[in-house]
């Protein structure tokens, strides 16, 4: 299992389109992916779950990835988040 924290740096935070990209990326892997913010823990493969985090820019998310491809999954998600979901800012 991989546990790490990661900061949202895109201006709009986990808004709808960003949440959708996160879910799509997480769903490419077999590993389970859980995100936690403000004592709310959600399945990162669920669009409603991710949206419910209501996480704005600057939020420190805790990410837990568990499964056979957890390394790749974790890297892909970090890449997506650090790359600001492909958004300019």
């Amino acid at each position, binding site marked *: 299992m991989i546990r790490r924290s990661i900061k949202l740096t895109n201006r709009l935070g986990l808004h*709808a*389109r960003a949440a*959708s*990209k996160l*879910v*799509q990326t997480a769903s490419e892997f077999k590993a389970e992916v859980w995100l936690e913010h403000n004592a709310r823990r959600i399945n990162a493969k*669920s*669009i*409603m779950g991710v949206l*419910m985090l209501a996480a704005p820019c600057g939020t420190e998310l805790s990410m837990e990835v568990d499964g056979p491809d957890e390394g790749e999954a974790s890297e892909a998600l970090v890449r997506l988040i650090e790359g600001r979901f492909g958004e300019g800012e």
Partner: protein
Amino acid sequence: MTGIVLVTHSGLGESLRHQAEVILGKMVPMTTVSISYGADPDLALDELIASLGMGQDSGGVVVLTDLPGATPHNLAQKAAEARGVPVISGVNLPMLLKVINHADKPPNELAAVASLGGHQGILNS
């Protein structure tokens, strides 16, 4: 895959579909049936029955309507009854996103997911 049929008052279904597609970043296969205020109920019912028939050819279908008791819902209910198709009222964007993401589930299971998704999206914060 279970087919999705949105039956709403004028334009609402198309608008919901458009927003879901923008959020998900992809085209989403679904049928939208818009019932205008001046529509002939018999013609609208025929259109609905045809829409459900198309969906039935694949893995079944679920119908989402906007307002229980209103004409789009009542007609959808009538059209769906004969085919045993589940009808879920009160469609909102959270419900639609959830249904799209779980469309691999069979119709009855997807109907339960739809209801859950719709409720999840209502917060009093």
